[in-house]
């Protein structure tokens, strides 16, 4: 690999992040929203690792490890919630889950 600009990777991360964000905003199905969130998390991790490798520190990778652990926990809990939602409300539409409104 030849030398390349650190900023480029960060731009890639930004693009990925924005794509995930668009997915979250657009989709109404809960599962798809979670998937899009995963994309966003991935992008964030990419940004961390890129930054770590720019400074030749292991810290970026360590951060990524933590992000990974957090993502795993979050996915498991989130999917459990999705199961419950499906069981109780019989719908996968996030627009129907409005009971916390003012």
């Amino acid at each position, binding site marked *: 690999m030849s030398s390349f600009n650190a900023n480029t990777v960060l731009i890639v991360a930004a693009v990925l992040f924005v794509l995930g964000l668009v997915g979250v905003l657009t989709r109404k199905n809960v599962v798809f929203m979670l998937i899009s969130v995963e*994309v966003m998390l*991935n992008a964030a991790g990419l940004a961390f690792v890129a930054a770590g490798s720019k400074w030749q520190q292991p810290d970026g990778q360590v951060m990524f490890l933590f992000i990974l652990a957090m993502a*795993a926990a979050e996915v498991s*809990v989130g999917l459990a919630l999705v199961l419950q939602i499906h069981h109780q409300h019989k719908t996968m539409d996030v627009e129907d889950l409005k009971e916390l409104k003012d």
Partner: protein
Amino acid sequence: MVITRYRPIHALLYLVVSFLAVAMIFLSLGAPFVAVLEIIIYAGAIIVLFIFVVMMLNLGKDTALQEKEWLQPKVWLVPSLLSLVLLVEMVVLLLKGSEFSMQVPVVDPRKVSLSLYGQYIIAVELAGFLLMAGIVGAAHIGKHTKRNLHRFLQEGEPEK
């Protein structure tokens, strides 16, 4: 691709592809440990979880039809606009920074592990807490309570 599919399974498969690509990027950035980690955990465990749930909830044909209805082009307009603005801003911010070319050093996994158990030991412990909480929470939330109704009073679908 992930975000635009109708069927969840397709989206997940594309998600796997995305993870693999990012892993490759990690590799090219000189972080082999993390690349492998990504593939194992992210693409391995988490996607599997997703697939489990999708299968369990039987999100197949009906979901596809629903999504077809919901995903009209006009739905994409406002989010895309806002996100575009965000992207542009982030890019501008990034480009303002100094140009910096770098060599590709390889950061040893050894160094990573030393750092992990050296400086970040507490964070590791905390991550352990987090995972524990995740397990317990997921187990509790996902539990179905059995409702014992008399045969004659049963309404709706029998539970699983």
